[in-house]
């Protein structure tokens, strides 16, 4: 009997232990299920975070990044009724809403509202109960109204806030409003929202840096191009100054020589005149006298041109019509053109304004170039005179371009660099002063003269003259 009782007691103890063990097993199973559920949830969130980070890596646009972050935040944190991403404006004077799953308010001061709290906070925050009510009570009435209109449920039951920060610099905030009791935000959510905010911050910062780098590269390219342009202009100006100095030196020498020759020339020409007076009208010497007078006359003309090179013929500055000058010059050489079987055509822009210039000098330039063009077309050809108005740069004055094109023999490349040098000529009877004087005159008018030529195709002389207010 005693043994039976003893066994019954043992059974009861064992049954009690069994029920305790079962109860404990139930608790452990529940805990395991909870942990399993959390692990699944965690795994899902980590997967989501990884997906977001991969998506952010390939994003090329800040707007795309912020839209993606807001969209993913809503799915990452169940029960979210609104997600807002704010960024500080360029002057750091306000927070601008860059993306929301609903349209929302913009805060004028960085410290305003939940976005302001998030921006100023060192790390992610969870606001619930009185803390959230207090934060919402800081908003103005219009901001409250705007926010209420944008939330599915009002008031929000909890909120997750996180600053957007990179290397200690905060430049925005991520705010999630929770509106469902069953899914109140939990402190466990804090690392995730901060991770999401950090990913967004890094992606936005990188894109901003990339945009800044691209802008700097563009600025650098522009600066380099402006520098190259300025360098080219400087080189051209230096070359022009050098050329002007050479011309001035040569011109001064020419004028000096011209003056010294004037006296003997005067004596020689008029001696011939006196000799001629004493000759019979039929004297055979008259023919030689005529030749001598003719050649002395030629010397006189060369001397005059040499002197004018240094001191161009006196002319008054006046409002000058370039098109009219070109028409007059073409009219002047009309017979010459006809005899040379040269077809002349003028394409003169009606936009060409009057400029202040020495009309006689410019006429001399046009005449020189047109006569040279005629010489370049011994078997006839086409002569085209064209004008146009253009502006090289926005800050530059309007410029008149005069192109005089021929279809002549062209200028050999070895001659081109010397074309505008005084006394450089390829003509048997040329003085080599025509183009030098032309270049001098154009330079004195603040302009430039250029030439392009193709052998057996022709040449184009381009004269650029700055316009001025008349």
């Amino acid at each position, binding site marked *: 009997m005693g043994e039976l009782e003893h066994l019954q007691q043992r059974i009861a103890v064992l049954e009690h232990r069994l029920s305790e063990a079962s109860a404990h097993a139930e608790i452990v199973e529940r805990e395991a299920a909870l942990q399993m559920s959390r692990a699944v949830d965690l795994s899902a969130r980590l997967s989501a975070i990884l997906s977001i980070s991969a998506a952010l890596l390939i994003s090329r646009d800040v707007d795309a990044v912020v839209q993606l972050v807001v969209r993913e935040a809503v799915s990452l944190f169940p029960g979210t009724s609104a997600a807002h991403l704010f960024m500080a404006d360029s002057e750091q004077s306000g927070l601008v809403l860059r993306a929301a799953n609903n349209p929302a308010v913009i805060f004028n001061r960085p410290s305003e509202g939940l976005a302001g709290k998030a921006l100023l906070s060192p790390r992610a925050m969870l606001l619930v109960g009185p803390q959230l009510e207090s934060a919402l009570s800081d908003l103005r009435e219009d901001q409250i109204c705007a926010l209420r209109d944008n939330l599915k449920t009002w008031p929000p039951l909890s909120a997750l806030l996180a600053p957007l920060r990179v290397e200690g610099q905060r430049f925005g905030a991520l705010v999630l409003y929770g509106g469902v009791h069953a899914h109140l935000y939990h402190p466990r959510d804090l690392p995730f929202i901060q991770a999401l905010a950090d990913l967004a911050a890094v992606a936005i910062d990188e894109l901003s840096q990339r945009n800044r780098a691209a802008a700097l590269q563009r600025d650098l390219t522009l600066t380099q191009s402006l520098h190259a342009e300025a360098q080219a202009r400087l080189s051209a100006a230096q070359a022009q100054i050098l050329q002007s100095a050479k011309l001035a030196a040569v011109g001064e020498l020419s004028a000096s020589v011209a003056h*010294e020759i004037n*006296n003997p*020339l*005067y004596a020689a020409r*008029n001696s011939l005149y006196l000799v001629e007076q004493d000759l019979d009208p039929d004297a055979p010497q008259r023919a030689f006298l005529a030749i001598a007078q003719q050649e002395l006359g030629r010397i006189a003309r060369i*001397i*005059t041109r040499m002197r004018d090179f240094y001191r161009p013929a006196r002319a008054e500055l006046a409002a000058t019509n370039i098109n009219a000058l070109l028409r007059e010059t073409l009219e002047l050489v009309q017979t010459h053109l006809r005899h040379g079987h040269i077809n002349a055509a003028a394409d003169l822009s009606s936009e060409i304004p009057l400029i202040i210039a020495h009309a006689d000098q410019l006429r001399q330039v046009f005449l020189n170039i047109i006569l040279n063009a005629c010489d370049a077309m011994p078997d006839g050809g086409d002569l085209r005179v064209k004008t146009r108005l253009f502006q090289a740069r926005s800050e530059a004055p309007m410029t008149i371009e005069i192109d005089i094109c021929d279809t002549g023999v062209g200028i050999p490349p070895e001659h081109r660099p010397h074309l505008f040098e005084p006394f450089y000529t390829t003509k048997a009877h040329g003085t080599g002063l025509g183009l030098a004087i032309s270049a001098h005159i154009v330079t004195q008018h603040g302009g430039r003269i250029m030439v392009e030529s193709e052998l057996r195709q022709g040449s184009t002389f381009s004269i650029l003259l700055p316009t001025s207010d008349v």
Partner: protein
Amino acid sequence: MPHRQIQICDDDSSAALITQRGLQSLLGDRYCITIASTPNAAWLVCAHGNIDLLIVDPGSGGGSAGALVRAMHAFRPMTPILVLTAYDTPGLRAKMRDLGVSYYAAKPIDFKDLLPIVTSALRMTPIPDAFFPKLYACHHR
């Protein structure tokens, strides 16, 4: 018998001789044309004689020729002056105009172009007030 006198002042002897012979040939025996190689010599002739026209080349310096012109204006204001120069420049023209020179020509000039200027100068009415703003004959070549 010559009754009008022209004085030439030119330091280039050939040019001076040609001017003298040419004008003599063109104007005839009624004119006595003399040459002085320096402004001083020319002034002595002008100061003591009865010169109807002074033709002067200021030369490359032009300084003493300027003094001659000033002396002529001061002491022989009715004698016309023709500047005939091989050193024509705007500066010289302006200087001569400022000195009151009414006739100006630049060498090399042909006699057929010089003659009208000379005859015009010789016909000039000898009234002092009319001297300065007279026609400025400017022959350039």
